[in-house]
């Protein structure tokens, strides 16, 4: 299985500015062979999806530390489905997300969720697995 060159848009939605985790994850993904397209802060779901389309991304990674995860997961997935990209682009969430909400995010269609204290190897393996299942 080859993950090298898979492209992941990494960003935050809305006003949440906590970017330490996202910057660390960006580096981890890069070191693992992923291409990281860093969208930074203050994105709307429309902007992130547009960027994913323009950059032919394979996944969107959203960092959420302000408890806005359910609100924006809904909006982001709506936008992806509206553009018929729900199956092609994987959606990953990471950040301060309570256990019960991890299940809720997955029911909405988020492919993977990572919470605080996730080790590098577990995170990379989890993301590799997302793509492995499509081969």
């Amino acid at each position: 299985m080859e993950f090298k060159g898979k492209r992941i848009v990494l960003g935050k939605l809305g006003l949440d500015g906590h970017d330490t985790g996202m910057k660390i994850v960006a580096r981890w993904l890069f070191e693992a062979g992923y291409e990281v397209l860093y969208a930074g802060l203050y994105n709307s779901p429309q902007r992130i999806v547009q960027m994913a389309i323009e950059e032919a991304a394979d996944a969107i990674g959203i960092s959420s530390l302000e408890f806005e995860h359910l609100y924006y997961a809904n909006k982001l997935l709506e936008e992806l489905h509206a553009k018929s990209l729900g199956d092609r682009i994987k959606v990953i969430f990471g950040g301060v997300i309570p256990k019960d909400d991890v299940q809720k995010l997955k029911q909405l269609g988020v492919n993977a969720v990572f919470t605080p204290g996730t080790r590098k190897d577990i995170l990379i393996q989890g993301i590799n697995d997302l793509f492995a299942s499509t081969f």
Partner: protein
Amino acid sequence: MSASEEIATIYLEGERVPHFRSLSGNEYKRIYTQADWSDELSDAAQYPFTRGIHTDMYRKRLWTRRQQSGYGTPEESNERIKYLLRVGQTGINMDCDTGTKLGLDPDYPLAQGDVGLQGTSLCTYEDMRTLYRDIALDKVSSTLIIQPPFSALIMAWYLLLAKERGIPWENLIGTIMNCAITQLVGPTYQSNMAFFPFNLTLKTGLDVMEYMIPRVPRWNIVNINAYNIRETGVNAIQEAAFAMTLAADYMKALIKRGHDVDSFAPRMAFFCAAHIDLFEEVAKLRAMRRIWARMLKERFRAKHQKSMWFRAAIQTSALPLTAQEPLNNIVRATIQTLAAVLAGTQSIHTTGYDEAHSLPTEESQRLSIRTQQIIAYETKVVNSVDPLGGSYLIESLTDRIEEQIWELMKIIEEKGGFIQCYEDGWIEEQVNEARYMMADEIESGQRPVIGLNMFRDEDEKTDIEIFRYAQDMQARRIRYAQDYKKNRNQEPVKRALDKLYELTKHKPEVNFVEPIMEAVESKATLQEIFDAMRRGADFTIPS
């Protein structure tokens, strides 16, 4: 290493820590003796204040218990503040939501998803009135957590509220954070550039300070936010040096505006972190007291003792806290709180054990207050001033850290000061390097974190209560903002906003606090006020 391998190793080889370095990388020696330190110390309240700024410290008055609070609507936050005061909080620490901190009304599309999450949603004068219902502005001190330029509006609301209640401004006690660069999750470049022109941000911050100095003499005009700098992952030396050089920049700017250093320095204070390296944190805060005193006396030629007092509000750092086994965080926060107390600080926020899961619940906030009360009333550590003073280790560490902070300050000053370094992206580079190093140290186990990279229980299932927002809270706030703007006399609003626009465009040198007050009195909202200024500066924001 798995838990069972770990145990096997411990029993075979004896349990020991991976190294003897401090969090900042300083090596702790095997033992400290007179050879490491044999100086004299001046008494507390004596220059350079190593041992504390007051003669009697906690014997005369305990530190202020000041838990940050704010979520949802102003009504909900008012209830939470009153709850905290009932269980023994002694000062208010008002936090507003991210939209408020970026000058956006709840109905702005990009702001809607964050309404009320990280603080109280505020967008009108009436919101402020609701937030402070039944709370005596001249009896309880308030810290208002907001940075420029939006601090000008929050301060205006607060002052107008005092006026409405007939409280003379000279009786108001509290602090406006008002730190232009570091409030939004540390000195992240993008967050300070995206929603307001940066120069105008700095300038409005100074306007607030200038406005407050003669009119509200007991009010602190700025709280240099070292805490948020530290929370990005930088070390104690960087935290202190960044904060000190930023403070120096503010002072230079106020002096340039013609103010005497002794007129404003006593009203400047700091907001620092207490991390988990107990001795290093105590040493850092003692060193900061000395640096501030020396900087004020020798460089800024202050004459009054009060100008030389380094006053610090402390929050226990959330970085050592884990989502895993959250009850362990109670132990960590207790040690961190103890560090702040042993260092002789002025107020403390003890971070909740549920920090890595949600905003604190009432129970968690009560526990934070109880932690402080137990330290204050039961442990006897408050009975003597600077109880660690004179320890070979503490004194030698204080000297060493002080020297390292001065060295880094010199580097920053040579590059043109903190603000210059920030604008040049140098600070961001330092911060990013620190973030990666922190992650690497946790990954490699060089920074042990129990329950996370050591003794991790993969099947851990601790259930704690999670704070939840009221279901329709965001919708209610959005509707409120829309209705407010619809149901008012529009003429005065337009006049006030036009004036702000014109001033920003043609006379940006005026002090903006009073024009903002006029706009508030006309019933303009938060975003309307700052949109008028944004238009005047020809500035667009993310949508």
